[in-house]
């Protein structure tokens, strides 16, 4: 009993912390979760994290909130998911409430905008660092099909501007087709 409450408190604190620093979109949560859940506390492996990121990405809603809930679920079950989800929501709620009252003043403040502009470069560096690590994990599997999927979905989304849901659906279809063909070959 004491053990589980300890876990809840840790989840609450860590998700509040992570969420308060999720600048520049939901993906930045992935390196944050890795830092605290995988590297520091070893609650799950890097492989688990990639699985969770894939699920959080492939389902509706905000990726950051989905991922926080999944990480909480992995650590302490449904209760953990609930605590993590609430903790992840509090910082944006509080900050936006504050900003919505003062947002004109906030925007004209040059110190704030200069610091935020700098943070954009920091976010970009964090993303590239994460991508390098995740790519090496997927390339290690030495599957041409899985490796090719990375640049293909990038091009489909970034260059061609195809809807994300369509890309993910098409990906599922390709995977099923590939397994089906392999099975038929063996027969």
């Amino acid at each position: 009993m004491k053990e589980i409450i300890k876990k809840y408190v840790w989840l609450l604190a860590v998700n509040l912390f992570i969420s308060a620093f999720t600048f520049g979109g939901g993906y930045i949560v992935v390196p944050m979760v890795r830092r605290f859940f995988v590297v520091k506390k070893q609650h799950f492996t890097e492989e688990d994290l990639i699985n969770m990121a894939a699920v959080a990405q492939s389902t509706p809603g905000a990726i950051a909130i989905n991922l926080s809930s999944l990480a909480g679920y992995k650590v302490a079950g449904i209760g953990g998911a609930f605590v993590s989800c609430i903790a992840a929501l509090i910082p944006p709620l509080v900050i936006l409430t504050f900003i919505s009252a003062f947002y004109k003043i906030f925007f004209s403040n040059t110190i704030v905008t200069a610091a935020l502009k700098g943070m954009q470069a920091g976010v970009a560096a964090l993303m590239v660092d994460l991508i390098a690590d995740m790519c090496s994990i997927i390339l290690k599997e030495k599957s041409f099909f899985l490796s090719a999927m990375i640049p293909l979905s990038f091009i489909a989304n970034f260059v061609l501007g195809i809807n994300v849901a369509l890309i993910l659906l098409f990906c599922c279809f390709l995977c099923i087709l590939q397994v089906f063909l392999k099975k038929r070959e063996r027969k």
Partner: protein
Amino acid sequence: MNVVLKLFITFLKIGLLSIGGGYAIIPLIQEQVVEKNGWISEKVFTDIITISQMTPGPLAVNTSTFVGLQVGGVMGALAATIGCILCGVIISLALYHFFQTHLESVYVLEVLNGLKSASLGLIISAAFTILLLALYGKSKPGPDFLSLDWTALFMFLTMLFILRKWKPNPIVVMLISGIAGFALYR
């Protein structure tokens, strides 16, 4: 209809339909909030996007909080925000549970593997957008490559070097880049 309930239902719809998150869902939110319900103006919506880029939290959550506050006060903000994330969290948990309990099926395993690769491609796409915003101040590069922000490029490369070499806490990186931005752009 009660405005709090209406906010909840509208954002439940937005949450359910917004797969992929980030910039992909901007048009969807705009359609519901600006065009259909007229809760905020086009100008305020653009401001929210800018605020979202600069403040922590997902775009959908930030927008729902902001709109909820403007339309229905604190209760409105809570209703909109919870509506916005409810479907996603439940479906994520269900799907993750399903994958975990069906890993012996080759089909499920391969679909999960494929989704991993595809979602990495999408993360790279988002990273490109963020990098372009940091280096050029806009998400699409124009023919004017001279408008490159050299200070931002320098900061980006330095941070990346530090990250690869020492693996510091991401929050430390955010703080350093914030202070550097203050020092270099002021």
